[in-house]
């Protein structure tokens, strides 16, 4: 098959190139230039492109660079800033996967005559009863099914995850054996467009107006002040200017009212959560989910909570089996089956 492999310059996509070659595919590597501004982390610095290109040369495949910086700004950076203005907690990596790695790259791949688009994500696509299904990667600690949960049924028939069945240690070993310069490269951690020296606040400062806010307790008494309500996240405990005393957590953020409410940890627990922006990997076959108890993951490597899902139209409600710590609006939840292996769907927290 003719495979378009997204190569970030990291070890996973480097090893993926080796795996695909080994399988006899005709591979073209592509590095997506996403962020045009300054940054020293993540997957689109010039040195990462150098790594990707050099690995492609070593493996013996062509390497291209596609400039998707305009789409990246439109679908990832601008919404990231807007989320902060609205007081929600965005997940830019998921939006990047949704709109760039998959939407845009799949469109390109199909237009250019490729049979598949591959990435180095740790997730697996398995076939059950003639249906392609998305499953967790073999390495439980490195599993990335959460960040690729939005793939549709059509996408799953077109996408490949060549290292999804491997342990991370096997990936590194393969890259080492292949003499690839990325073999020992650390995993990327942070948001790729935010430099480690400026941080989130430094990135947002020139892009929005920070507003100070009163920090109040449940009775409405002012107990502190924060310089930027836009930077406060539900569940946050530090940086609220509260001094010592009992542990208190952010239990509500009201940006228009410039008010942050704090309370006991117990106030963070809820029995229901509303979800929107739903995505279903099996062509909207929601029968596996609706009215069923599923496992819900609310962050990239977070714990799972059990809950029953009730779909109504474009939204749904999770009724937690036990009170669940609130997940900040804007964050993504992904549903897994009872074995905690198969992705059933996902969405974005509304409230």
């Amino acid at each position, binding site marked *: 098959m003719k495979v378009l492999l997204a190569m970030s310059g990291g070890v996973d996509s480097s090893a993926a190139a080796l795996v695909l070659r080994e399988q006899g595919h005709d591979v073209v590597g592509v*590095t997506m*230039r996403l962020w045009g501004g300054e940054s020293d982390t993540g997957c*689109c610095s*010039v040195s990462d*492109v150098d790594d990707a*290109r050099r690995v492609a*040369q070593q493996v013996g495949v062509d390497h*291209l*660079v*596609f*400039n998707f*910086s*305009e789409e990246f700004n439109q679908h990832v950076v601008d919404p990231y800033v807007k989320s902060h203005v609205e007081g929600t907690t965005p997940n830019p990596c998921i939006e990047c996967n949704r709109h760039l790695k998959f939407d845009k790259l799949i469109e*390109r791949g199909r*237009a*250019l*005559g490729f049979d598949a688009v591959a990435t180095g994500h740790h997730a697996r696509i398995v076939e059950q009863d003639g249906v392609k299904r998305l499953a967790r990667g073999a390495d439980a600690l490195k599993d990335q099914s959460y960040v690729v949960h939005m793939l549709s049924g059509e996408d799953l028939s077109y996408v490949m995850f060549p290292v999804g069945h491997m342990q991370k240690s096997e990936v590194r070993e393969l890259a080492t054996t292949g003499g690839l310069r990325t073999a020992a490269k650390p995993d990327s951690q942070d948001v790729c467009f935010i430099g480690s020296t400026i941080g989130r606040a430094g990135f947002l400062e020139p892009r929005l107006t920070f507003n100070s806010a009163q920090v109040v307790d449940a009775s409405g008494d002012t107990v502190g002040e924060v310089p930027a309500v836009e930077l406060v996240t539900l569940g946050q405990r530090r940086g609220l200017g509260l001094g010592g005393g009992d542990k208190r957590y952010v239990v509500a953020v009201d940006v228009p009212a410039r008010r942050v409410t704090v309370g006991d940890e117990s106030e963070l627990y809820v029995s229901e959560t509303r979800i929107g922006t739903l995505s279903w990997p099996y062509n909207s076959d929601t029968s596996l989910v609706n009215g069923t108890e599923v496992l819900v993951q609310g962050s990239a490597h977070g714990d799972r909570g059990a809950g029953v899902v009730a779909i109504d139209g474009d939204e749904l409600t999770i009724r937690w089996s036990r009170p669940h710590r609130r997940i900040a609006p804007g964050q993504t939840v992904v549903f897994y089956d009872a074995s905690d292996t198969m992705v059933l769907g996902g969405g974005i927290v509304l409230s």
Partner: protein
Amino acid sequence: MASASIPSREYVYLDHAATSPLRPEAHAAMEPYGDVMYANPSGSHRFAREARQVIDEARDAVAEAIGCAPGEIIFTSGGTEGANSAVLGAVRRTGGTAVCAATEHHAVLHCVEHVQGVVVPVTEQGPVDPDVMRETLRTTDNVAVVSVMAVNNETGAINNLELISHAVRRQAPNAIFHTDAVQAACWLDLRTIWPHVDALTLSAHKFGGPKGMGIMVLRNGFNVEPLLLGGGQERDRRSGTHNVAGIVGTSVALTITDEKRASEVARLGALRDELIHGITSRVECATATLAPGVGIAGTAHVCLEGLESESLLYLLDEADVCVSAASACASGAMEPSHVLAAMGVPRERIKGSLRFSLGHTTTRQHVQAAVEATAAAASRLGAKVSVS
């Protein structure tokens, strides 16, 4: 290790504005200076004197092709060095303001921006309007240098340097008037350009000379601060051991380019017209960026509205047709063209731009193959295409 041998497949190479293949005559002339005649021409022994003679002869030949005095020639490392020397060197010498056109190559534009200079807008077809230049210079104090390219590297648009020079002489009489003539050497008689400017920059590999070689011509009586200090080999205006082989290759390539220019302009101009006609008549969304007669004979710049250059380039590459779009950044990604943006070309057209640039190896078969491949690529990407 990547193979350095000549590709076995027949490639259609229409990217001469990026680089033109080394002319065989230049290659042959350079050969002895790699191994046998290795002396440093700045030495005093007979071996060095031989090398010095070779450079002196090369300088004479280059001066002949430009119509300047041999002493006005400075051999450099390429077009970027020449442009940087002219703009930054002039500003450093007088402390004045740098002025350039919005469509300049980044080698000029980034220098002017670096010294907070003035960038002059261009007309819809690409050239600078001399009246706009005159007005800009009239309202700008203490202009140190004005830089306007002879020919644009993306579109091939030609500037009227004679009229612009009148504006410079009148409104900024103390300024150095520099032209980046990198894209002009194959297409315009440099003797018709040199009388209008004080400084002129060339890049050898654009006219079939070696990479890493350039020429800066600086009129006697005009001086700029040198970028490179050291042994003062180029009359203290540029330092660094002479690249003897490179200088010889440059001079041979420029001499041949000059001799063959008139016939090549006629031959390739006709092929360029055929190429533009072929693409714009077959591909419904394709338009020629320049009106006929505005540009040099060697460049066919088209915009395929609604398509993406990156996809077109990939499919053309698969069909063994080598062309380009706008310039690439350090990562290798295509950057949206600042040239087309300055000309006011709509974004949807800019995104689908392609540059076919012809040169001394181009044949009619190449042009026909490029038309076919472009039509096929556009069709594959969903554009309406008619059969020939």
